[in-house]
């Protein structure tokens, strides 16, 4: 069976690529420290020596649209083109191409359906910055096959937080039951407090630093019980109108396991939103 060698959760700040590659007067003052933190975070994945990456993210109204909106979707394609015109325009993100791992996609789909998740699938999926940003930060050589898993955190009605956690637990079970000897890492990105297109957007910090502190504590401690006791679809409007992306962090807590403390935690307080980086080593290996 496959081995789950790392579980990684992070934010997906789309300006990292531009900030980290800028030079001279165009390089923002926070870029050097941001790069240092990202490179340290990257080492936590490198150390696990994965062969395959399951990538959890959310389409930002790129390919998935309100005429046919899935709640949870698994990509099942031999390749995935990536990044869209409006992401190149706004964030300076490059066009990218990924190799898929169709056998694991098929295993997640069949197994997920049998566990009670009515998963949608896509045989031609162009992925966006929720998945490309963690590749840029964690695996910039882009040399590993991927399985994209998309969640709906954008277009109400949304699945409830508990369902995200349950899907994370199912992904863990399915990765570990994949009849393959390769080493798998599950990487997911979400949001802490975030406001987009509202009055609290683009402040000097995230819109709700108190929520961010609490959220980082929940994730770092693996405190699913505490998190689920406070986080609801209604409550997530309070820290910012795009904070429902926090449910992808909750999904990753489900992958990592109830009560499982993160082996690596780091944050970086930036304009607009706080960055947060977490790594778990399921077998205890790879920890520094």
């Amino acid at each position, binding site marked *: 069976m496959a081995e789950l060698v790392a579980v990684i959760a992070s934010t997906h700040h789309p300006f990292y690529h531009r900030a980290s590659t800028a030079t001279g007067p165009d390089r923002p003052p926070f870029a050097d420290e941001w790069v240092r933190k990202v490179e340290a975070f990257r080492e936590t994945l490198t150390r696990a020596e994965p062969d395959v990456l399951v990538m959890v993210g959310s389409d930002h109204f790129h390919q998935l649209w309100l005429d046919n909106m899935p709640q949870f979707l698994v990509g099942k394609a031999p390749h995935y083109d990536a990044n869209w015109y409006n992401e190149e325009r706004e964030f300076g993100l490059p066009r990218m191409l990924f190799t898929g791992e169709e056998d694991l996609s098929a295993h997640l789909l069949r197994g997920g359906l049998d566990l009670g998740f009515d998963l949608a699938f896509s045989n031609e999926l162009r992925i966006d910055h929720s998945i490309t940003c963690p590749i840029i930060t964690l695996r910039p050589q882009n040399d590993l096959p991927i399985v994209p898993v998309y969640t709906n955190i954008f277009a109400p009605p949304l699945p409830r937080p508990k369902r995200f956690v349950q899907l994370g637990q199912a992904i863990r079970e399915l990765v570990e039951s994949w009849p393959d000897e390769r080493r798998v890492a599950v990487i997911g990105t979400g949001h802490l407090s975030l406001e987009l*297109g509202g009055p609290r957007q683009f402040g000097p910090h995230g819109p709700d630093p108190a929520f961010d502190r609490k959220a980082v504590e929940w994730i770092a401690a693996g405190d699913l019980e505490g998190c689920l006791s406070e986080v609801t679809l209604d409550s997530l409007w*309070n820290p910012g109108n795009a904070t429902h992306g926090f449910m992808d962090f909750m999904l990753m807590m489900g992958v990592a396991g109830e009560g499982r403390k993160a082996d690596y935690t780091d944050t970086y307080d930036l304009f607009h939103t706080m960055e947060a980086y977490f790594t778990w080593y399921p077998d205890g290996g790879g920890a520094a």
Partner: protein
Amino acid sequence: MSKYLLDKFLFTVDRDPELVERYREQPRATVEWWEAEYAGRLLGCHGGERSTWPRFDVVEREALATHDYPRLFELGAHPFLTLTLFIAMFERDYDEPLGFQHEYARRLAHHSLPYPDIST
């Protein structure tokens, strides 16, 4: 109310560089053209298959035709779609980094929770 159609306008214009510029320079004409030619398109289908019913109401049409993004927020247009498109059109007009984004927030500052419902 046709929040879905507002969102469809923002979505389809934002992903087409030529339409972004047309909407910036000729908002009313672009909205009129889009409603007549584009509103009924089933995305991913050829032009022979169309929806026959989508229409803006008067308030929605005017908000789009006047680039009135605070009004779009009030009408429940998806804020991510509105923000992304309007950054593409107007960020260039501000000297300060994030100048437009901050102006956008200021023009919405009278709003408090709960924000308008974005469900379609």
